[in-house]
């Protein structure tokens, strides 16, 4: 028996790309215009205390561009610099962008999350930045802007980043994407390895990974790890995402209550997936994006009116 060999498609990988490469590939060619670019050298005023090197853009790229001809605001975190964590400058750039989206009212915002959470070396400033971003994000949504989160980077989307993701109008996530509040190591440190073995990658992904998030309704779209796929998902979700108001919050309350009700007693991702009606739950983690998307759409239609 012979088979056709797999040839890795050479479409640029989202996971491997830098924040700038993601932005460049996501938007219409040549359309991106950065605000406070690296040449302005607006670096962190705090990292020096820890003798840590700074990055000219403080780990986030914000600006404006076009997606399929229409204007969008975009912010992309660089997960390799300080784990993509929110510091004072980093956070303020995103706050400013979202406040602008609020005032512009109809321009969608794409947030390319890639973050371990708050940058601990400037923890108070970073924590407050999350609060400010959150408020600006919701003001933008209430004014009519769609805010779409795209998650599939090295650092995942943890801590305050996870909360911000939960505030977006819609989320697209890839296999690599992880969304959570407490990171695996933090849980292990605080609760012991019996509660959570942070070195067990399979466990980490079953718990926080993109597939579980899509299956429980924590993300609206599951995509292949390519910039192309994230672009398509962004276009799709901008159209589907809900406005923000009391009805949406009530729908979300019901959605989350149903989840607690159905899965609250599950000990593992596998149990949830079985409960969802997936017979061979153990095969889910190894599934290709295409197969998984088909399965997920069959099991749980994304609902776009409840976040």
């Amino acid at each position, binding site marked *: 028996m012979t088979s056709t060999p797999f040839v890795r498609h050479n479409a640029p990988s989202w996971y491997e790309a*830098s924040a*700038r490469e993601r932005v*460049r590939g996501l938007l219409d*060619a*040549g359309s991106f215009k950065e605000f406070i*670019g*690296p*040449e302005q050298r607006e670096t962190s005023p705090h990292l*020096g205390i820890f*003798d*840590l*090197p*700074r*990055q*000219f*853009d403080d780990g986030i790229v914000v600006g404006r561009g076009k997606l399929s001809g229409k204007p969008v605001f975009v912010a992309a975190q*660089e997960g*390799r*610099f300080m784990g993509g964590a929110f510091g004072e400058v980093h956070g303020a750039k995103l706050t400013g962008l979202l406040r602008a989206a609020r005032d512009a009212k109809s321009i969608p915002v794409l947030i390319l999350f890639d973050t371990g959470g708050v940058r601990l070396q400037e923890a108070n400033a970073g924590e407050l930045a999350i609060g400010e971003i959150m408020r600006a994000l919701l003001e933008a949504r209430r004014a009519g802007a769609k805010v779409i989160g795209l998650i599939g980077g090295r650092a995942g989307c943890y801590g305050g980043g996870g909360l911000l993701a939960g505030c977006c109008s819609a989320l697209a996530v890839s296999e690599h994407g992880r969304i959570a509040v407490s990171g695996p190591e933090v849980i292990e440190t605080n609760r012991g390895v019996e509660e959570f073995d942070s070195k067990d990658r399979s466990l980490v992904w079953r718990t926080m990974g993109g597939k579980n998030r899509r299956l429980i309704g924590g993300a609206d779209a599951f995509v292949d790890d390519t910039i192309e796929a994230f672009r398509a998902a962004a276009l799709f979700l901008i159209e589907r995402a809900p406005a923000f108001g009391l009805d949406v919050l009530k729908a979300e309350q019901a959605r989350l209550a149903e989840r607690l009700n159905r899965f609250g007693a599950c000990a593992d991702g596998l149990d949830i997936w079985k409960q969802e009606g997936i017979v061979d739950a153990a095969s889910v983690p190894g599934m290709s994006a295409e197969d998984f998307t088909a399965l997920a759409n069959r099991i749980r239609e994304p609902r776009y009116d409840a976040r």
Partner: protein
Amino acid sequence: METFSYRHKAERRSTGSKAQAIIGVVASGNLEVLVERVLPDTECQVEVSTPITGFGSVWEAVITDFVERRSPGGLKLSINDGGARADTVALRLAQAVRLIEEEGR
């Protein structure tokens, strides 16, 4: 943090018309290079900020070679280093110049 600044004469002006480009990230074993077209055509400047001390002579050798090989006239290159190896530095410098010389990216 240790900082260095090197000024060199370059043989010719770097080609292309882009005003600036940036490559790399500040991460363990990596670095970012910001390149800006802000100097007279035969001058080149490299600014380095690194948390790893004691490698001054290596930086100097890498940058001297770089100027010789790539002739980055008119360019100012600013480096934030995350503890990169010399060959990675050389590669990023070359990538930075390629990026600013390319059109349309």
